[in-house]
């Protein structure tokens, strides 16, 4: 930090161009990220999974095996060069199905978290900023939702509705938004005493403007970190419901559903349940490591400004 105040000439020296300052920020963030090898591993895994999901039809050796086709001549084959993860009970290539399964899992994760954020964040903002009776109602409702394990809640909702991928996403979101409400409410409570909020009030800003243009931008990094860390758990929950037969139905290559199908043939045909299981493990791990890394990146930023 500079001790003396800059006057124009000095400022011109250190303010050469705006673009440079911005890329420097990114560079610094990247530097902080790089310091932790594990978060780089997480980032790599997540990038690979996302690319896999996008380019699934081109990466998968047998793209048509993602469907409900049956190949009697290839049933229950162990891993080989032809089918590196083996084949399932109707002869489909498990490797190809796992690659297509990445699409399902990512869509599930993104959709559930988007719904949870869209519902949970504004409620948290309102509860934190307005206070009073509104806050009590919102936060007690949140407490009730949080008291029920999200998997059980999703099970109940999924059992009422028809088991489709869309419904399972709704079911999981139903139990997920309260986490964001609580997170944001806490953040808002600590932010609303800040001077810049008071300053904005002094300018004549309305409560809505203060909440959404002053406070919300300061919550974004926390929300991103939380969403990244949650991604793994949402995928896990989706897979659990799939395993229980309440999620995506066969022949959709959902990882949880695939484990359920392969479970019957354990331990002899171990590859049928193991490889989808490993896919879930790696994905959840990847998002968690990345989330931890992002948390470090953002935390340092906060310290620097504080």
């Amino acid at each position, binding site marked *: 930090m500079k001790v003396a105040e800059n006057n124009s000439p000095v400022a011109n020296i250190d303010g050469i161009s705006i673009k440079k300052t911005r890329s420097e920020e990114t560079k610094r963030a990247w530097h902080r990220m790089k310091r932790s090898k594990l978060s780089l591993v997480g980032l790599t895994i997540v990038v690979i999974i996302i690319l896999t999901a996008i380019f699934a039809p081109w990466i998968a050796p047998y793209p048509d095996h993602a469907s409900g086709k049956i190949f009697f001549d290839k049933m229950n084959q162990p891993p080989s060069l032809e089918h590196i993860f083996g084949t399932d009970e109707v002869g489909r290539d498990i490797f190809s199905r796992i690659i297509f399964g990445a699409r399902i899992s990512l869509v599930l994760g993104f959709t559930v978290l988007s719904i949870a954020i869209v519902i949970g964040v504004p409620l948290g903002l309102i509860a934190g900023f307005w206070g009073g009776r509104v806050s009590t109602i919102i936060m007690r409702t949140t407490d009730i939702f949080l008291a029920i394990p999200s998997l059980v809640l999703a099970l109940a909702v999924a059992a009422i509705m028809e088991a489709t991928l869309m419904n399972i996403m709704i079911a999981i979101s139903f139990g997920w938004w309260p986490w964001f409400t609580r997170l944001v409410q806490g953040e808002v409570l600590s932010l609303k005493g800040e001077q810049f909020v008071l300053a904005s009030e002094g300018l*004549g800003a309305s409560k809505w403007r203060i909440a959404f243009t002053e406070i919300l931008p300061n919550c974004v990094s926390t929300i991103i970190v939380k969403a990244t860390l949650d991604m793994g758990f949402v995928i896990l929950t989706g897979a659990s419901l799939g395993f229980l037969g309440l999620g995506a139905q066969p022949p959709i290559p959902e990882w949880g559903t695939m484990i359920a199908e392969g479970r019957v043939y354990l331990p002899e045909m171990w590859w049928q349940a193991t490889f989808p299981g490993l896919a879930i493990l790696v994905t959840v791990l990847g998002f968690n490591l990345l989330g931890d890394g992002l948390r470090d990146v953002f935390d340092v930023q906060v310290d620097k*400004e504080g």
Partner: protein
Amino acid sequence: MDNYILQVENLKKYFPIKKGFFKKKVGDVKAVDEISLKLERGKTLAIVGESGSGKTTLAKSIMRFYDLTEGKILFDGKDITTINEQKLKKLKQDMQMVHQDPTTSLNPRKKIKDILEAPLLIHNMGDAASRLKRVKELINIVELPEEFLYRYPHSLSGGQKQRIGIARALALNPKFIVLDEPTSALDVSVQAKIITLLKDLQKKFNLTYLFITHDLSLVRNFADDVGVMYLGSIVEYSDVETLYTHPQNPYTQSLLSSIPVVSDDEQSMLPKKIPLTGEIPSPSNMPTGCKFHTRCPFAEDICLTSPALLETEYGSFTRCHLVEKINKQKIGV
């Protein structure tokens, strides 16, 4: 139109203390207790006091951040004691505030341009192009380069940030600005520059300032009148020269005598050292009578009754039973 931009009459702001499960009111924090002020157009009134004396609460009450417990505020001839939200918003165009800590009063997630544009957006002023023009004008007024508009606050120094804070307060062309310890978070060398800037701006835009500070050394060159605050009350009210040459209240004297000096010459200009012992009492449990008697070296029995704010021989006003006696003592010594 009369000559006073701001008139405050018997302003009181009490914060209730609530205790227990049913939040029963058990008392009051008397942050501001019966204060009256008059502020002429284009002048600067300094409010001086220790931390906990209620000076910031006074400023915020005048800015109408809270509803008052009692009293009346006239701004520009209009009663603003109880006004609706719309009128309050309109009022903010004429009445602005520069906050104490420039680091926390600027949103860390917003670029300087967005920070300076916010007041214009809030009051629906102009289109994007004219707002940008105004923002550039503002940053020039506070003598910062335009490149700073696209930076975030954390890449600016403390003094630069406070300049942005001042620019933001000027955005709506106010008539009156509350300066809430605008330099207390800054280095001494920067303080002087900010004070000079504020003085220049006052002349240029014919601004009226209410200057809140705990630092008496800043007041002399900056303010026209001074009100010394202690525990929510004004204990001395005077023009700035009289305050420095003939401080009447023992509290004022002790404040003045505690200004650090570097030479004997300077020391001789200050009143004799009156050490101020102990902490300021809690405003929730106010001493009876003269509020200062618990720490006053001259305190006598009469100090257990409340003194009034009375005019002194020098034309200033002070709240002390023993003014004349103390003055005689001094002459005797």
